[in-house]
């Protein structure tokens, strides 16, 4: 009964007011044969101290040295203020801001967030988040299929090819979600340079409804996004861009890819102030051109006026959403990742464009230093961002396991994702990695490879 405040006197007075003898009487509408108690050995409740001790022990069990894995989740520095602020009860324990007048804090944060993501991506609109990168990509694909009216009119097959180096776990999540609507998600091959090879699509008629490309891609390689965007635009294919938001401090925004840019932009916001924390909670974002705003799923905040004409914020375009539109909604999403959006907004405010650019540049530089120190060949020839695939010349999984036993996350072995890359690891060094840690990795890897 750790959090129930009732005294015996309270309970007695309340039962009297209801007019029943005991609490059990309140359950008299549940048929007896459905009444049950927890099975197995009763568990005594733990005090907070005991519970914390158990968690501390288990967390300590998993403590690791420096992390050289990225693959969609990055070990960046997070300013102390970010989570001090985001953990304020007024942010953390508020509900969805349906009562706008009592939720101006959350609503304004989301409006500021939408603005920041529009600035990074070059898009016109952004929603208040989806669950994470993989599920967000699924929403982007569903949105693209809904939005491509030309394809629907002409009866193009519901096929959305993905560039071969889109994050394989995003691809899996997307397929599990969109297959229920009869959408096919074939993979395009990647070339020796690590970039997508669009020639597989040449001559395909009709063209695909939409095309997904990730920049930087899963291999850390930079795609030729201008050519891809032009290819899609020429054919009436909508382009879905999956991006690392941090990279956009340095890289061309998807709105400026090719002559017309991408139509929908999605990605995972973890690099913006969210701890790795086993991959969640993080948040996904979904941005679009103005023309597609009514196809965006999830919550959107707009600025409006109150009865006095003062500026204020409210959820808007709710006729897209499940609580209004039910079976005709753009998505079933309700709860999103609001608190992570709050953290990301504060993070971006503290770093600003210059800070994000420096973090991105420092991460690129550290990764180059790492690749140099490891002394193994790069697998792909095209320029990379802050991740890189290197070839160990032997099956990589046992090497990574051996490094882990030494307390070091020495990259991600790619065999489980790409059988042809079983000798390769994907490595990443963020701005947090020191030269000493890089040297430690290089030494450990030499040791592991010499066994």
């Amino acid at each position, binding site marked *: 009964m*750790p*959090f129930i*405040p009732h005294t015996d006197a309270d309970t007695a007075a309340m039962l009297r007011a209801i007019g029943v003898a005991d609490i059990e009487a309140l359950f008299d*509408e*549940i048929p007896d044969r*459905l009444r049950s108690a927890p099975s197995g050995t009763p568990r005594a409740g*733990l005090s*907070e101290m005991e519970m*914390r001790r158990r*968690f501390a022990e288990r*967390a300590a069990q*998993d403590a*690791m040295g420096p992390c050289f894995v990225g693959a969609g989740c990055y*070990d960046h520095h997070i*300013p102390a203020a970010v989570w001090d602020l985001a953990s*304020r009860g007024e942010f953390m*324990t508020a*509900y*969805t*801001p349906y*009562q706008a*007048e*009592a*939720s*101006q804090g959350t609503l*304004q944060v989301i409006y500021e967030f939408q603005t920041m993501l*529009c600035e*990074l991506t070059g898009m016109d*609109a952004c929603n208040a988040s989806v669950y*994470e990168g993989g*599920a967000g990509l699924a929403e982007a694909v569903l949105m693209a299929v809904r939005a491509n009216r030309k394809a629907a009119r002409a009866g193009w097959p519901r096929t959305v090819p993905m560039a071969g180096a889109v*994050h394989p776990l995003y691809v899996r999540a997307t*397929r*599990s979600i969109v297959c229920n609507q009869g959408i096919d998600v074939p993979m395009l091959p990647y070339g020796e340079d690590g970039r997508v090879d669009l020639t597989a699509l040449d001559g395909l008629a009709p063209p695909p409804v939409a095309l997904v490309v990730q920049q930087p891609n899963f291999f850390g390689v930079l795609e030729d996004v201008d050519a891809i965007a032009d290819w899609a635009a020429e054919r009436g294919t909508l382009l879905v861009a999956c991006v690392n938001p941090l990279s956009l401090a*340095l890289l*061309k925004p998807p709105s400026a890819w090719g002559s017309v840019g991408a139509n929908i932009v999605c990605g995972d916001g973890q690099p913006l102030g969210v701890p790795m*924390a086993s*991959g*969640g*909670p993080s*948040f996904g974002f979904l941005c679009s051109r103005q023309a597609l705003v009514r196809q965006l799923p999830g919550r959107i905040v*707009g*600025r*409006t*006026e109150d*009865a006095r004409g*003062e*500026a*204020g*914020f409210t959820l808007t*375009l709710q006729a897209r959403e499940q609580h209004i539109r039910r079976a005709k909604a753009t998505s*079933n999403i309700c709860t999103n990742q609001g*608190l992570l959006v*709050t953290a990301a907004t504060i993070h*971006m405010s503290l770093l600003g464009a*210059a800070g994000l650019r420096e*973090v991105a540049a420092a991460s690129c*530089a550290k990764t180059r230093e790492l690749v140099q120190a490891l002394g193994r060949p790069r697998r792909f020839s095209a320029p990379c961002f802050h991740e890189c695939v290197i070839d160990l010349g032997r099956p990589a999984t046992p090497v990574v396991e051996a490094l*882990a*036993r030494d307390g070091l996350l020495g990259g991600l072995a790619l065999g489980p994702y790409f059988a042809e890359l079983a000798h390769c690891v994907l490595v990443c060094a963020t701005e947090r990695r020191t030269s000493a840690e890089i040297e430690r990795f290089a030494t450990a890897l030499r040791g592991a490879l010499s066994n």
Partner: protein
Amino acid sequence: MGAQTIFDLSQPGRGAGAQRPSPAAADDLPPELRRDAPPRLPQVSELQALRHYTNLSRANFSIDSQFYPLGSCTMKYNPRGAHRAASEPGFLARHPLAPASVSQGFLACLHDLQELLKDAAGMPAMSLTPMAGAQGEFAGVAMIRAWHDAQGDASRREILVPAGAHGTNPATAAMCGCTVREVAVRDHGDVDLDALKAAVGANTAGLMMTNPSTCGVFERRVTDIADIVHDAGGLLYYDGANLNAILGKAKPGDMGFDVLHFNLHKTFATPHGGGGPGAGPVGATARLAPFLPGPIVERTDDDYQWVEPAQSIGRLSAFMGNAGILLRALAYALMLGTEGERRVGEFATLNANYLAARLKDAGFDLAWPKRRASHEFIITLAALARRHGVTAMDFAKRLLDFGVHAPTTYFPLMVPECLLIEPTETECKEELDAFVAAMECILAEAKSDPETVRTAPHAMPVKRLDDVKAARELDLRWRPQ
């Protein structure tokens, strides 16, 4: 507040200098892939940002600052201890793709939670990956669909929902490529069994429902409902939105449900975060277990391992769902223990029935006066609206002035001018009495001075907002003047 944004505070050349890493060049990036102009993010000092967001937080209602009787949302106390436990440095620093061999502490926690939830569900299998209730629903309906397909019965594509179901139910069915049919609800809040019998058939994939229902009452003939659906070849989905009412008292698995989701951000007290994150673990009976989304933690003789169920509907996220929320839920469940779990359902129900009795005495109309309230109940202000021109929305807005978050309004849709009220078990009697006093006061105002109620709120940072203008003149981002 005047809605001064962080962008309005920005000055060129300003910034939070302590947050900048030492400068590095990224000279080798191809020039054609670089951006021309920097994004216009705020340029503010650390103190400016801190003060701005601290002040914004103060413009919010929250559980930590106000009573929040928001029906169907279970806004109970979110223990800080659980938040701190999940924020152990070892957990925050764990990379999602770290090998299982160096993740045994984390996997042990997930395994413990799986076992706890299986027991609460009365089901033998559990997947923790869905990231919110709606994603749990998606997993459940996708599993039902996959099960029918595996039986060679791909024609079953219709999902039944009782009238008044949460909007996520029909939206989920549609997202899973199914059609939706509503089944009527009778006068006392129970599903109309004759209508259900008429609705089921060879196309029925399954039925989605909550119990207690969205009417705030326990569906007494739930096993009859299960029999009708099962006899027609369909399966039953339990929406865990209202599980707080029966935690430790009854189990969905015993009622005949085949698959369910939990809302850990409701029943297991994890914070709502201003809209999320949540977590929506999915439980299943033995015949549906092979279809669960992965990964699931399995305990072997030596250690814990990730496994993917044999006929899994697949992954629903790149990694392990909202892992941090799962840890918070486990921390909460450990503090409750078995006895504490049972008391959750008991005191949530006591508080709701007490409030219902007090409001009835104060002259409010209960939607189903002859029924026991579950953990929540509905009042209808239809008579008041007719007589005084004061709506449920007006009442809700006026409550804000009394420092109480509004109950859920206009849900379920079939009850006119309704408020759905859920006090939760963590509120003390004094808080409930203060709520009744506020409701009595507004009722008196509605009669004597309806204009004050109609124009509420008066004590919030903003007056009532113009939603029509917001939708017609879309302003979704700040722009420089």
